[in-house]
């Protein structure tokens, strides 16, 4: 067993050396495509931060004063529920102060100053309202009506704040996802080609191996391992790139004035590490798929 494992590793390293240029190209392409995959995740998360308050077709948020009385609160609720032809009553959602505070932590992730001013005691609770009508004037009219209810601190409309960003987010998402998929395809193809070239270069050896009775898996494994390592190396490089990118982004965002909303585009470090793990897994998969296909296909020499 040990003899087999050490054989596989020696062969992998030797083959790597023989094919430096091709391997480097495969690694770089994997790195670039994985970096794009990672960036897609980060951009998406940044948009999500902006849009988190409006998730699930929420069209209007009624902010309720933190010091609201029980009667005032139930009166607001009744008023909202009294309009089933304009408001989707089923989806009407009330976030109490604790839940609203959790949400604010995400919205103001990059804005420490604002965040430090907030607390569970002083934050407004909120009704998330999903309109059933698409008529903006109708919703706007309702908003004006709710604004004057006792206990209501304010009313925000998605239309005013985030409609544009939401559309942009959808667009950016489809563009980045498409591009990452294409580039991932290119990376798999390049790894496939590197491994195929390595196998063609060693066809004499492979022929002898088959004649003396080496199993197909024994012949394949060093090649698959080579592809796997290329994929993982690519992923490591892309993780480095992602880290640099995110740092530059975070410090860039910090330069904006607090309260402009840009600060919520900051992505927390824990999320970035999660994305890096995904990149490593995707890189390893791309590498072993590319080399696996090559190694099964070109064994018949």
């Amino acid at each position: 067993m040990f003899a087999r494992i050490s054989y596989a590793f020696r062969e992998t390293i030797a083959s790597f050396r023989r094919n430096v240029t091709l391997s480097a190209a495969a690694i770089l392409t994997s790195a670039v495509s994985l970096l794009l995959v990672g960036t897609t995740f980060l951009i998406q998360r940044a948009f999500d931060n902006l849009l988190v308050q409006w998730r699930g077709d929420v069209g209007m948020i009624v902010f309720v004063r933190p010091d609201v009385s029980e009667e005032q609160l139930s009166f607001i609720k009744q008023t909202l529920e009294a309009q089933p032809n304009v408001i989707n009553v089923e989806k009407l959602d009330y976030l109490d102060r604790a839940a609203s505070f959790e949400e604010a932590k995400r919205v103001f992730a990059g804005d420490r100053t604002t965040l430090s001013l907030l607390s569970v005691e002083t934050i407004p609770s909120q009704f998330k309202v999903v309109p059933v009508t698409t008529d903006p004037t109708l919703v706007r009219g309702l908003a004006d009506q709710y604004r004057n209810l006792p206990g209501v601190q304010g009313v925000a409309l998605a239309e005013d704040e985030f409609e544009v960003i939401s559309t942009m987010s959808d667009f950016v998402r489809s563009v980045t996802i498409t591009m990452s998929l294409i580039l991932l395809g290119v990376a798999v193809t390049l790894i496939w080609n590197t491994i195929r070239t390595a196998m063609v270069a060693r066809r004499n050896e492979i022929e002898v191996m088959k004649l003396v009775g080496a199993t197909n898996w024994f012949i394949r494994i060093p090649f698959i391992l080579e592809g796997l390592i290329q994929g993982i190396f690519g992923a490591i490089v892309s993780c480095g790139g992602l880290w640099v990118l995110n740092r530059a982004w975070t410090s860039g965002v910090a330069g904006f004035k607090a309260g402009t909303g840009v600060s919520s585009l900051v992505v927390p470090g824990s999320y970035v590490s999660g994305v890096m793990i995904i990149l490593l897994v995707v890189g390893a998969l791309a590498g072993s798929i590319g080399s696996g296909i090559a190694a099964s296909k070109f064994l018949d020499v």
Partner: protein
Amino acid sequence: MIRFENVTKMYGNDVAAIREASFDVPKGEFVFLVGPSGSGKSTLLRLMNRQERPERGTVWVAGANINELADSRVPYLRRGMGNVFQDYKLLLNKTVFENVAFSLQVIGRPKHVIRQQVPQVLELVGLADKEDRLPSQLSGGEQQRVSIARAFVNRPLILLADEPTGNLDPGTGEEIMSLLDAINRTGTTVVMATHDHRVVNAMRRRVIQLDRGVVVRDQERGVYE
């Protein structure tokens, strides 16, 4: 040890490289396959280690019908067979020792077995003092010895040789033949395809003659003709 029953091998739809071949090679026998170029000698050898599969008929090796052998079992069939070729098929970037060791390595033999068996077999073929040379630093006869050592190091039941003396001068060819003879005397069944009438006539072993894929003669202690 090897039995062919009405074996037909086609290349494409019309060319029959082997037609209805039937013969039986008992364990320990030495057999020459002779016949003009293109008569099917190499094809016959390739049918024996499952490099080719027949369209009709059955090939038996060591009691097993190898047509029905699963692909995943073929490597184990081949571990019981050595192969020697006219062009040696040595790995040019490996030394003599490494070339022989390679065939043990790739079937997962441990290092200590390799360290013990490779020098033994190199001694047998008379190359003990040249184990660190590259194939390019050897004569043709010496290269063929290396390839025989590689084929024999795993102590196979069967040795398949395709014109092993084809590239060698008569004297060197004789040396190779006495080596194959010695290997045959250890009990290994040897099947050798050849054009070389001198070696056939000198050895006086069983001769199977092919003509356009048909076995036209099968003779104990035969000559080339």
